[in-house]
Every structure is written in C-alpha cells, then in structure tokens.
C-alpha cells in the first residue's frame, strides 16, 4: 500500500468510526445502579411522565454528560439539578449518561423533510 492509501484509509476510518451513535464512555450497568435518585423525576428508564422533567431515554450520551457537567459547575442553573449533580464524580456522570443513552428511546432525531 502506498503511504497515501494508508493515510486515506486512516482518515476514512476516523470519520466513520465517529458516525456511530455508540457510547464510548461510561458503564451503563453502573449507571443504572447510580440512577435511583434520578428515577423519581426522570422515570426508572429515563422516560419521564411529568412534562416538567425532560425525557432522557435514548438521548445522546455526550449531550447528557455535558448537561450534568454544566449543572455541577453551575454553568447551567436549576435548583434541583445543581443539587443532584453536586455529588457526582466524572465517572458517575459518564455512567449515568451511558445508561440513559442506551435505554429504549423516548426522544428521537427529527429530520427536515
């Protein structure tokens, strides 16, 4: 293989490996165990019944992780969530995000027709 071929293949691999929605951080099983406090508002599997609390099931894991980080740092303000996130380690947040992302989706992508 020429060097160019190798570089092109490596680039293609890098691009396409990111396209999958597979979560590459966090342990969903550990996340489930850590989610007891979350279930009260967001539902056991992240499909919240109350319109006040967003559905999390099937949401992008990196978005969920970003949200938890922002609640913990105070960049995002919500009295309940700031309190909830205060005690979470990065590992906790990654596990929780991975858990909810892997649940039977309650939120879906929408495409422009």
């Amino acid at each position: 293989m020429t060097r160019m071929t190798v570089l092109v293949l490596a680039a293609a691999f890098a691009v396409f490996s990111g396209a999958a929605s597979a979560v590459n951080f966090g342990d969903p099983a550990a996340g489930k165990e850590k989610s007891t406090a979350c279930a009260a508002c967001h539902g056991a599997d992240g499909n919240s019944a109350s319109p006040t609390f967003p559905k999390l099931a099937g949401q992008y894991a990196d978005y969920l992780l970003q949200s938890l980080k922002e609640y913990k740092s105070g960049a995002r303000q919500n009295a309940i969530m700031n309190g909830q996130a205060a005690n979470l380690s990065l590992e906790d947040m990654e596990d929780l995000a991975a858990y909810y992302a892997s649940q039977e989706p309650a939120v879906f992508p929408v495409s422009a027709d």
Partner: protein
Amino acid sequence: MKAKLFGVLGLMVLAGTVHAAGDPVAGENKAYTCLGCHGVEGYRNSYPSYRVPKLGGQHAAYIVSALKAYKNGDRDHATMQSQASQLTEQDMQDIAAYFAQAGQGEQ
C-alpha cells in the same frame, strides 16, 4: 343547582386552556431554522463538542421552558439565545408541540 355546578366546571376547563395550546402544524413551519442543527442526526455543537440534543418526542412543556430560559438569558448558549430571542410565546408553544410529536416513526 346542577346547572350552576356544570357552569363553574365549564369555566374552570376553559380557564385551563386560556394559554393557547401549541399547534404542531404551525410549529413545523416555525421550526425550520431549528432543524438546521436539531434536524441533522449527530450534529455537533462546535465548542465544546457534544451532540445537539434530540428533540423528537420530548415533552412540549419542557421544550417551552428551555426556550424561555434561553430567551431571558437564564440558560447560556449563544446560538440558542439568539434563536429564542426571535420567538413569541405562541411560537414557542407551536414549535414545542411540533417536536413533541415528531420523529417517532423515523427510528
């Protein structure tokens, strides 16, 4: 007496609907600019890099509260703040109603 009771109950029901519920058909038109980011699967926020959230099937009331928080600056994100600043209350209700019922069959 019964007529009075039903009259009062009827007024209470109407009072609950004073806030015009969102119209998903109007919302689909108004959500056109939203789909530029939220309608491209896997689309990423530029920095930090994370995927913009899926909105299809989300609670309409939650979407409205998020848009209001962006509009009044309680929630920080430059693009979302500028998007939301253009929206009236009715726009928000319509857009939220659209997203709440969108995307379900596309998975």
